[in-house]
């Protein structure tokens, strides 16, 4: 007791020290904020100078193009449903590119993620190289692969599908292996002890544990891939993006078809987003009793 009081400093000292510390931290934060703001401002200035048209010159015109499209769409609103039917096959192609790419990506990504997880990989020294391969697949923008494949294979859905699938393998492989790391190894050990092969112990011991998370990530990826598939169409690989570029190149007075495609694309993205986010919510937060009747999930 005596020691404590003798070593304790007056409250005022502690307070002033604390206030000094707070001030120091605030000054530091302020400097950081100033540096950040300065970077943003100079960044925008540089970007503005390098742009073909300036920001302030372009700002009044920003609604010109949307207005052209909307007014023409309203003017010929009676034709729009016909265009919906006309471009539905392209839309389905875009969705199918995304669907097939996601599916292929999930299958290959699942396999590679098991190879890239310590403790599950059958060949431990392959873990590092497989991870680097996933890193590289993730780092290459899909447009690069698509453009090269268009040169080799000609236009059409296949280059886009392969490009998106490769990127999906990289992205999902990493996410899946993170999920795998959290999986319990006890079922795997149990299966191994009764003589299961690697494939069997993965299929029966790991996949049932991680499947809901896998599905959730795959659905999220599907949303992203639909957008990617539309963009790749725009640079020449089939689907609705390709039609969008063509209809836009017809110029003023023909924007009604472009408007129809805008609407189709917007509606598709919103609908898929909503469906997949509600499905993901159900997967991750779990519906009561969904485990007991696993079959009902189909």
């Amino acid at each position, binding site marked *: 007791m005596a020691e404590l009081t003798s070593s304790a400093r007056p409250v005022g000292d502690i307070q002033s020290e604390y206030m000094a510390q707070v001030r120091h931290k605030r000054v530091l934060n302020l400097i950081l904020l100033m540096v950040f703001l300065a970077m943003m401002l100079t960044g925008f200035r540089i970007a503005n100078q390098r742009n073909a048209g300036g*920001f302030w010159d372009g700002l009044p015109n920003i609604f010109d193009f949307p207005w052209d499209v909307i007014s023409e769409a309203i003017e010929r609103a009676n034709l729009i449903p016909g265009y919906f039917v006309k471009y539905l096959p392209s839309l389905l192609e875009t969705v199918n590119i995304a669907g097939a790419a996601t*599916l292929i990506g999930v299958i290959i990504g699942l396999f590679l993620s098991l190879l890239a997880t310590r403790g599950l990989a059958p060949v431990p020294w392959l873990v590092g190289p497989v991870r680097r391969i996933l890193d590289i697949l993730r780092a290459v923008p899909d447009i690069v692969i698509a453009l090269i494949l268009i*040169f080799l294979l000609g236009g059409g859905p296949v280059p886009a599908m392969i490009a998106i699938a490769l990127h999906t393998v990289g992205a999902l492989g990493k996410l899946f292996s993170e999920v795998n790391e959290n999986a319990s190894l006890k079922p795997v050990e149990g299966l191994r002890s009764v003589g299961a092969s690697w494939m069997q112990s993965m299929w029966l011991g790991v996949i049932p544990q991680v499947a809901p998370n896998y599905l959730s990530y795959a659905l999220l990826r599907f949303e992203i891939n639909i*957008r990617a598939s539309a963009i790749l169409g*725009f640079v020449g690989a089939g689907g609705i993006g390709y039609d969008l570029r063509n209809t836009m190149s017809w110029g003023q007075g023909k924007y009604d078809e472009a408007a129809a495609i805008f609407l189709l694309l917007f509606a598709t993205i919103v609908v898929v987003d909503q469906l997949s986010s509600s499905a993901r919510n159900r997967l991750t937060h779990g519906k009561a009793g969904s485990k007991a009747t696993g079959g009902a999930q189909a």
Partner: protein
Amino acid sequence: MSVAILKIQTDALFRRKRLFALSFPAMIVAYLAFIFVSFDIAGLGDRMNVQNAQKLVSDVYSYKTHVARDNRNGTLEIAIEGERKGRYPDGTGPDWVTLGDGDPIVDLGGGHVITLGKTVIYDVPNYGRITATPGHSGVDLVLPSADTPDWINRSKNRVAITNDAGRLTITRNRTEVFRFFTGWELFFFTLDSPYYGLSVAEVAGRAVSGEAGAIWHEFWTNKMWRHADVAWALFETILMAFLGTFGAAIVALPMAFLAAKNFTSLGGIRFAARRVFDFLRGVDGLIWTIVLSRAFGPGPLTGALAILLTDTGSFGKMFSEALENVDDKQIEGITSTGAKTLQRYRFGVVPQVTPVLLSQVLYYLESNTRSATIIGAITGGGIGLLLTQAIITQKDWEEVTYYIVLIILMVMMMDWFSGWLRRKLIKGADDAH
């Protein structure tokens, strides 16, 4: 009795599960089969351009030097890849071309020697001497053997001889020899640079003796590879990602408060804010890019604004969710000390959400570097533009490879940087991984 019922129920459950386990893969296979047919993957082999593939692959790791003789006036032109930028000054050439008073002699190595005169003489090892004379009536070809071997392609007006050493084409107006070399031509210095052809040690020696600045200048302004432009394009791409991501975060933060249940009690405002986010996200980067490039023209600002608009939607949604998960106890504690609204936000809310928001923003920074490349390819700006330009020429595949390598390095660097920043700013956030 009850055991029997349980057994029946269990059997039914097992049957259902087994059916599901079988039907799920069957559905996947059926879908893939449908894709196989509808995308005509079987016909891919016919559509695939094998020649393009060979050209692409060989161009990635090798280059060719053209030696061309104009048969109308006898002038000789030596150029790397046949490009003006890679042209040797008149009267000079690589050491395998003998220039003198007589006809130029091209040594393709391995005993293949071509004399480029009015009459072209080509000594092929293990075959003999080929002579060809281009004239008004076409190309007059004389072969040592009676029949034409399959590596010689001849018609009345054009002769092409292709083998491992190189390629010789003769038409009435022009005789051209290609010799192939491994590597990327003129990567460091172009032919007009005083440092061309020097070894690494020689260049290093010159650099030490005070020419480092000049050497760097020659490298940086290389006309063939345009290192300065490429570096600037990479910077522009990163700039687009940086401005777009952080700009979106700044715009989205106040709007997220409007969309969060526990900060905005008015349902109407909440609904409106959420629909704005949905709209911004749903319209998608592609359409924003198109719309904005109509107003602002191609360039990094357009790309940055497109990212900004799309991500405002994503961030708004994520931020408002994070704000709804805020712990009320901390706010109550601050309120009990008599804090005003602004102080409650500053000390009760901000410290709780900052780590969450910051880590989401930094995660997007990395993925937006890739988006910026793609947007650059659509609207024209940054490394994406250079890449599409190089791909469209369909012959500069070594440059395409160079850009792809740079893009991969850039994305990996941004990945590392955002991870580093996340660990620095949010202590303990990534310790678990």
